[in-house]
């Protein structure tokens, strides 16, 4: 079933790339979401639907996939975000095909149970993102691609070395996650192995000093926002820290924990700071993403079960609201042909529905209790407080700052007097709006339901680090 869930969007993606009509893509996104939802509901703790086929016989590499509480949650939100994008982004079929292709690769990435297979999907998911930028990007796209790829490829190579080292030094017979976990790397080598992973994942998170590829990536992407929404989903660093880097080399993590916590808190505040002064929507959202991922990373780096749960929940939920906001920005661009915040003004007079939707998404991002962003932020900060009260306090500034930049942007766009005339929500935007609002409320009100499968994983994670409940 997991394999089906991975292959379904890939199949639809390929069909669309070969020239199938766009409607088929919407159907594919819907089917995929329905399947992911069913899988999520059917998932009951542990590893369900495990599959394992030899990939490289003799070398210990397996096509191994399984659904656990963590991957099930990500399956759900990835499927949802892609569906939102398919509903609302006005792009041609092939573009949507690339998005579906990427969805399949991301699902593979989240459910992989073999380190090499994970790496495979991790790298392969670059290609659709690259092609989206290449074919549909703006004028400066070549430079953006260069920056993006150099950062990520350079980051991946130490990771490849770390993957090889984990098996060679730990003495595991295969690259299967459970075998590797049974043979973690100890001693001085653990630090180097962890560093190898950490560099790659910090780039994908993105953490502060290595986030430089991100703003350029978003600025040059197609204004529809679909590529950006997919880019939001590709911030898999926090997930990978939780599932691979830290459990496989806990001693290495222990040595660097202080530094990582500091960098995460710094990212959170720095991202919020830049977002506050951003002139256009995409820059604002891109840096808001940096800030949120900093908070999420803080949770995982805290090494506590609450922190890890909160960080992962934030990662999953942010895909929905940040992705939704990127898509919304795409609709605004279509109406007014600009992304500059200063040039909107007073849209709520002529488009109250649009304004309400935007407010919903913004408030979810800010972390209003009852909406998707809140449970994650709360748990993260609780966990971070246990690890380092000072840094938690420092990072908390970003939450306040996020309220400031989000509400300022909202005010400039939708309130203030002189209203520009724009069309209100219409056509395909209604299902988008309803689905997004419903998802944000559900994620906000019933976090326990979505986290139940994840809790044992987070506790096991904390146990590896010697703490835990």
């Amino acid at each position, binding site marked *: 079933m997991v394999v089906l869930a991975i292959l379904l969007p890939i199949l639809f993606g390929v069909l669309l790339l070969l020239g199938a009509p766009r409607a088929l893509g919407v159907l594919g996104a819907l089917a995929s979401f329905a399947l992911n939802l069913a899988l999520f509901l059917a998932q009951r703790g542990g590893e369900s639907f495990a599959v394992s086929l030899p990939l490289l016989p003799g070398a210990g590499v397996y096509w191994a996939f399984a659904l656990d509480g963590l991957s099930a949650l990500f399956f759900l939100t990835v499927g949802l975000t892609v569906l939102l994008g398919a509903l609302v982004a006005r792009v041609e079929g092939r573009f949507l095909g690339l998005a579906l292709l990427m969805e399949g690769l991301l699902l593979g990435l989240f459910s992989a149970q073999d380190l090499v297979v994970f790496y495979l999907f991790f790298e392969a998911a670059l290609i659709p993102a690259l092609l989206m930028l290449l074919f549909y990007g703006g004028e400066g796209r*070549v430079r953006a691609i*260069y920056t993006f*790829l150099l950062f990520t*490829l350079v980051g991946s190579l130490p990771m490849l070395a770390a993957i090889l080292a984990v098996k060679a030094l730990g003495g595991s017979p295969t690259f299967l996650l459970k075998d590797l976990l049974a043979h973690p790397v100890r001693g001085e080598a653990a630090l180097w192995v962890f560093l190898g992973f950490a560099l790659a994942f910090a780039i994908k998170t993105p953490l502060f000093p290595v986030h430089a590829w991100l703003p350029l990536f978003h600025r040059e992407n197609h204004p529809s926002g679909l590529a950006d929404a997919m880019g939001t989903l590709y911030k898999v660093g926090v997930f990978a820290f939780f599932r691979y880097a830290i459990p496989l080399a806990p001693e290495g993590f222990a040595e660097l924990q202080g530094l990582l916590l500091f960098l995460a808190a710094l990212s959170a505040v720095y991202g919020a700071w830049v977002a506050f002064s951003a002139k256009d929507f995409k820059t604002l959202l891109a840096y808001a993403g940096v800030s949120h991922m900093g908070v999420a990373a803080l949770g995982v780096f805290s090494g506590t079960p609450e922190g890890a749960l909160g960080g992962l929940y934030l990662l999953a939920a942010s895909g929905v609201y940040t992705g939704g906001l990127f898509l919304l920005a795409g609709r605004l661009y279509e109406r007014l042909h600009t992304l500059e915040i200063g040039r909107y003004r007073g849209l709520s007079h002529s488009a109250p529905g649009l304004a309400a939707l935007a407010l919903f998404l913004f408030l979810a991002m800010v972390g209003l209790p009852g909406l998707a962003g809140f449970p994650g932020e709360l748990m993260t900060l609780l966990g971070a407080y246990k690890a380092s009260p000072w840094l938690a306090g420092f990072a908390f500034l970003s939450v306040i700052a996020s309220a400031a930049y989000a509400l300022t942007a909202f005010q400039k766009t939708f309130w203030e007097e002189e209203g520009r005339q724009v069309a209100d929500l219409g056509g395909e935007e209604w299902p988008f709006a309803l689905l997004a609002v419903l998802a944000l409320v559900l994620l906000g009100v019933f976090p326990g339901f979505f986290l139940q499968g994840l809790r044992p994983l987070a506790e096991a994670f904390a146990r590896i680090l010697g703490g835990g409940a």
Partner: protein
Amino acid sequence: MTLLVLAGFSVVLTLLGFFVSVPAFKRLTILGLSLGLFALLLTWGRAEAFGPYQVDGVSRAFTLLALLGALWTVGLVRTRRFEFYLLVLYAATGMHLLASTKNLVLMLVALEALSLPLYALATWRRGAGLEAALKYFLLGALAAAFFLYGTALFYGATGSLLAGTPGEGPLYALALALLLVGLGFKVALAPFHFWTPDVYQGSPTPVVLFMATGVKAAAFAALLRVVAPGAGDALALLVALSVLIGNLAALSQKEAKRLLAYSSIAHAGYMALALYTGNAQALGFYLLTYVLATGLAFAVLSEVSPDQVPLERLKGLFHKDPLLGLSLFVAALSLLGLPPLAGFWGKYLVFTEAAKAGQWGLLVLALLTSAVSAYYYLGLALMVFQKGEAEAAPRPLARNVALLVALFLLLLGLFPGTVLPALAAG
């Protein structure tokens, strides 16, 4: 049997060449190479021996690659003289022989049998090609001389002409070193790489394709037999030099064939790393992916222009001919080693072997230089999508083959396990 087919066709076609029209001759050459390939597959898994000529797993796998390169070259080239095809056929025969013997003297004969036709092929275009060919010839002759001295010393040290005979003492070490130098020239390992960029740039593109695929395959088979058992640190040094020099020099190249020439030095370094760890399977797989991807890149370049191809001229290739553009894109990414393309598994296997052998220094160096290579491969891959007026007049056949190979690179990347057992025979 493979040898009989190839050699037989070579001789018969030499005579026929004067009577048969060129297009028919081309078809006959293709028939000969295909029959050779067929004979190879027919006897797969069975050992054949005839004196010093011994066909085993290594010989089959590497001959297969060499013949693929030869077929591709013949298919691509546009020439009105039958000698071209004949020379390729002769060279292919030499390659098979080189891959199928342990006797050093026979190896030398085979080496010359494959080199002489290539010297001639390199001059195919007069003018610019002549200088390149002269360089190739002089250095090649020097390499043969090194190989000959090495053979003599090897005999002196071990009393045997069979490669892989264990020995000891300074004489033995010197013999191995000389043999390594001789073969190192052929596969363009640094520091014996100086001919590569000039020759690649100056020679006609289909010939370069042949040099980069066939010659490497055959010479690596020989290296595997001769050097791998006892080379040790000397080989490690060559690995380090090759990956460094190849990748760093490729960074500043403005001409596509020169760029690929330097990158081929780097790839020779990665393959030598597999050699160093003594794993024929990893080497074979790497070579397979390399032959396919490099062949694909040169095939696309030869459709763009038979002469030199400054990178600028590739701009807009995708818009002019999407299939060719995509093929070059895939080839470059596979050479870079980006999953899910086959090139990734080649690198992966080699690096795994290095990790298993505990060669952390070489492994880190290989990874770092691999990261450097990302820069120029991306430049090449992205060039085709930029705005510009590329020239290309591809024939349908060339385009279909390119597409087929590109797809194969993808499939091989998804299911690398399928071909590995076949390469394990060595």
